[in-house]
């Protein structure tokens, strides 16, 4: 004997079954958790983020305190200068933590800016299609072939070394690939059978967008965002290295590396500390990005 359900009960049951099923994201999480490099990187990165936020407040030295009698002290336990001091007698640990915080923040904010521009541009082009799409994507193609770093440098010179401008300048440069990815996904999804099927089955439009479109666009976007943060951090450091990034006494990893490179003969620790921090951070972000890509889009493996 079959039980009969009212339409409302039926809908609830379907909803429940859908929730209990293993979604794309459940699968992805399981695969990601099996990836040892990615899990280790997440733990290390969490520690780094903790150090750069809470840690710098708790550390015994301030990043801008100048100890005139302690210039270029090699790493020592005295006074807790465990990574030494720089050319002006400032504690390296405090400076590295602040620099790491600035670099991570630039990475996140500038990535968000490029995410905003890229998703809007790509989704518009993909959704409208036709001539508009062609013109918009041709524009992206042309921008792709430009020597952007020159414009960023001129931009920084023109408007001064402002940290907000760094976010905008880097974000405005890095949105191109995001626009391409989102456009491709939008066009592909527009014509998918399962979207039509859902529509035919009477699923409402917001529900289609929520259940089918967003999860499918989100995968590649999340992966690309994770891989973009290290690229952006590199771009900021690149500018800082050339003397165009954040201003003293505030610092970033790129700036510290630049200063360390100048002082590496008398005081190699001023280079090694920031350089190692930068490498570990970028390693972690790249491993997490690669892990996410393999987890969300496993066909490459």
């Amino acid at each position, binding site marked *: 004997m079959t039980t009969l359900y009212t339409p409302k009960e039926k809908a609830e049951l379907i909803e429940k079954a859908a929730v209990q099923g293993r979604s794309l994201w459940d699968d992805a999480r399981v695969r990601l958790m099996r990836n040892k490099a990615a899990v280790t990187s997440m733990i290390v990165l969490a520690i780094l983020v903790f150090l750069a936020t809470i840690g710098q407040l708790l550390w015994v030295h301030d990043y801008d305190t100048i100890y005139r009698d302690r210039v270029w002290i090699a790493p020592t336990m005295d006074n807790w200068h465990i990574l030494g001091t720089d050319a002006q007698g400032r504690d390296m640990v405090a400076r590295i933590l602040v620099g790491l915080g600035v670099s991570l923040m630039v990475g996140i904010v500038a990535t968000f800016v490029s995410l905003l521009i890229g998703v809007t541009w790509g989704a518009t082009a993909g959704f409208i299609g036709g001539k508009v799409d062609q013109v918009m994507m041709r524009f992206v193609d042309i921008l792709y072939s430009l020597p952007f770093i020159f414009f960023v440098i001129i931009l920084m010179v023109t408007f001064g070394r402002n940290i907000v401008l760094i976010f905008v300048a880097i974000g405005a440069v890095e949105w191109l690939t995001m626009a391409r990815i989102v456009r491709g996904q939008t066009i592909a999804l527009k014509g998918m059978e399962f979207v039509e099927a859902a529509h035919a089955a009477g699923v409402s439009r917001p529900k289609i967008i929520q259940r089918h479109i967003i999860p499918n666009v989100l995968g590649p976007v999340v992966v690309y965002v994770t891989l973009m943060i290290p690229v952006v951090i590199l771009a900021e450091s690149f500018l800082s290295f*050339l003397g165009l990034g954040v201003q003293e006494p505030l610092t970033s990893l790129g700036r510290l590396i630049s200063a360390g490179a100048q002082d590496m003969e008398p005081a190699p620790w001023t280079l090694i500390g920031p350089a190692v921090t930068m490498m570990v951070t970028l390693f972690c972000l790249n491993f997490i990005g690669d892990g996410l890509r393999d987890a969300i889009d496993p066909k490459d493996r």
Partner: protein
Amino acid sequence: MLGFVLRRFSVAFPTILVIITVAFFMMRVAPGGPFDLERPMPEETRQVILASYGLDKPLIFQYFDYMGNLFQGDLGPSLKLRDKDVAEIIAEGFPVSATIGLFSMLLAIGLGTLLGSIAALRQNSGTDFSVMTFAMVGISIPPFVMGPILALVFGLYLGLVPTGGLDPRYGMTPDRLILPVITLALPQIAIIARLMRASMIEVVRSNYIRTARAKGLSAPAVIIRHALRSAILPLVSYLGPASAAVISGSLVIERVFQLPGIGKHFVDAALQRDYTVVMGVVIVYATLIILLNLLADLLYGVLNPKVKYES
């Protein structure tokens, strides 16, 4: 194909014009000027100097003057380096930049292809794992970190190569170029190795490779003559972005290793508002990048007969 090249040029030319225009006006909007010294000079002297360079005219006239001279091949004099034309500065710096850029690209393509292919053919082996770890290191360590570290280890501690830039008496000698070239090439080696590995893995699974094996060709012949040809296509389409990356990387490399290339001039000139030098370098590099992109697209078409230039 000729039509394709012409069409690309018809886009490239206005693009370069726009780049020049934007760079020109952005540079001029920047506060400060080339003659703002630490010690202020008398206003009359300043005016005389500005007038001698035509910098006292309204900006739009300066722009047309500049463009007029540019079309006659005149990039103007440097505003900061006395008695030097921009053309001279570029002519002196370009060989240095071009040499390290070219050798880096060759090293990156050669070694990247080799490592990527080896990793793909021994997929999931220890070799594969080491190559991919190396690639991750290459991608995660930026040139401005790698450069100082290499200089510290090989120059200072081991004393294998001289530090401190080019010796003007001898010019470009291999021992002074090897570290800059390696530093500039490393990230590109890493990216190309990853690209090659992915595409090689896909290609060696395809049917025509199985056919080539089945008809008794030796393994090296299959790889070199058949697989490499199509596996190399993603690499070719990466050549455009790669050359742009090498050019921007050279800005840092020339500073780290104190090489007198045009990248170093560009950064210094931008900071000192040496307008004409900035413009000169932007024009040279923009043209170069656009040409290299075109070249990469053409090469792609030659290697991949599926591409038609008609559309």
